[in-house]
């Protein structure tokens, strides 16, 4: 039995005028770290709210830990942990008071499940008498995670836990998730950061309420059609403009210090032709390499196909 399963889930707002989630089906296995990757407005939060019984879907069915999200919502509320996107703890309560409150709310105590949160809690323990509102972003996330874990949930839903958090704190956060996974907790996490996708066991790429692809990050990148090249030169911005106006260009996007490029028709000939073209245009230090696509490349590719 899957830990989470969705069948043709659909969610609309404003009497059907705004479609947030369109016909989404997926299943997450027990103990899996599953990522839902997509930009803001893709429908991630709506999906999470349906699964945490906060919203009723307009169509389709879904189960969490075997319970139906509509019929058995009470059972689901007993067994899942949820961390909403917005920082949702009591700002005027201290770290310890927040944790105590949520522990009691779930009929447990900090001591009972301390093992589970220990590693995370020791990092915020020095600030336990500080009000939650006075914590930094990274610390708030850790506290929120502790609160969501305190009752040893079977499935943990994390809605954009790393949004607005700096990249060091993000790395730390993902390490924590890795370790939680070892405790056999199923984790569903959503994020707009494509680079975080590789840290998941499996991912669903989502855009405008539709699933673009579901698979392991590795398989998704393997499914990238054709070859992807990295092109760099001394003047990246100029290069981008020139490549956009080049005839044989299928796509060209800036990726950090280099450009990711695909040909309409490809081959050693074409690569050499491009190299010459750029030399004629007086680009210096031109380097063209074939590279392995990233999730972001795949996302851009799938997104362009959709529209």
């Amino acid at each position, binding site marked *: 039995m899957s830990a989470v399963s969705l069948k043709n889930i659909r969610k609309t707002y404003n009497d059907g005028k705004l479609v947030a989630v369109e016909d989404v089906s997926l299943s997450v296995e027990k103990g899996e770290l599953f990522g839902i990757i997509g930009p803001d407005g*893709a429908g991630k939060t709506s999906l999470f709210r349906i699964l945490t019984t906060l919203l009723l879907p307009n169509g389709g069915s879904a189960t969490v830990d075997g319970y139906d999200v509509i019929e058995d919502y009470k059972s689901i509320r007993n067994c899942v942990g949820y961390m909403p996107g917005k920082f949702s703890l009591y700002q005027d309560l201290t770290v310890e008071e927040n944790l105590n409150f949520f522990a009691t709310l779930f009929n447990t105590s900090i001591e009972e499940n301390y093992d589970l949160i220990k590693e995370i809690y020791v990092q915020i323990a020095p600030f336990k008498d500080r009000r939650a509102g006075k*914590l*930094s972003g990274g*610390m708030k996330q850790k506290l929120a995670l502790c609160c969501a874990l305190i009752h040893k949930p079977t499935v943990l839903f994390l809605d954009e836990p790393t949004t607005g958090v700096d*990249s060091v*704190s993000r*790395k730390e956060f993902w390490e924590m998730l890795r370790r939680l996974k070892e405790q056999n907790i199923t984790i569903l996490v959503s994020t*707009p950061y494509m680079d975080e996708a590789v840290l998941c066991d499996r991912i669903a790429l989502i855009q405008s309420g539709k699933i673009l692809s579901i698979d392991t990050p590795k398989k998704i990148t393997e499914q990238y059609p054709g070859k992807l090249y990295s092109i760099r030169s001394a003047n990246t*911005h100029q290069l981008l403009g020139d490549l956009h106006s080049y005839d044989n260009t299928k796509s060209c996007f800036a990726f950090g210090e280099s450009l990711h490029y695909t040909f309409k028709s490809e081959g050693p000939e074409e690569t050499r032709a491009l190299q010459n073209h750029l030399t004629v245009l007086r680009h210096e230090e031109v380097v063209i390499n074939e590279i392995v696509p990233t999730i972001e490349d795949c996302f851009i590719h799938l997104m362009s196909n959709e529209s």
Partner: protein
Amino acid sequence: MKTPVIKANKLTKRFGDFFAVNEISFEVYPGEIFGFLGANGAGKTTAMRMLCGLSIPTGGEAQVAGYNVFTDTEKIKKNIGYMSQKFSLYEDLTVLENINFFGGIYGLTDKQIKEKSEKLIAQLGMGSEAKKLVGSLPLGWKQKLAFSVSILHDPKIVFLDEPTGGVDPITRRQFWDLIYDAADNGISVFVTTHYMDEAEYCNRISMMVDGKIMALDSPANLKKQFSVASMDEVFFELARGAKRKAD
């Protein structure tokens, strides 16, 4: 060498014994894209507020667009643009109404506003959306529109606070195209971001750790300096030593 648009010298903001910003010095030149990076709590927001004339420094000196941040804050506000992820445009006004409003508060004439809004709408390809409420637009469009509105009055410099947070990868790149255009037109761009690939798009990067600027150079030189392959690693090297995590 051109005169810098921002010139900060030992700029400091102190709250009690706490140095939110501790003697930072740097310069930003016309048409430069200046990446302002740092971990949460490093002091970026405070520094940005001082440069925008929203907060008076407690020490050091700085000039923005030629005006002193201690005394000429009102003049600074007229000569800068500002856009943040959190607040950009009024969701319950239409695209045109927003342009008119912001043009108006920056003192543009009706004629200027009309010309500029036509140009802007054509540039963004939003002809059919001009009379729609901003709230009904997709996030990416909103952010692009907000950026264009923030430079409507041709400021010398525009401050962008995490302008691309949560935006889809294609729109994010289109957004950077707009930034490059602005820079080509001589507007300096002062930008903060959590996307490390975007750091690579900047001409120069400053890295703030615990209220101080710990590194300031072009992305290429920074990578060389730390002997790493990506800006992500540069950031990690610098920020993991930060002490001020809880604040």
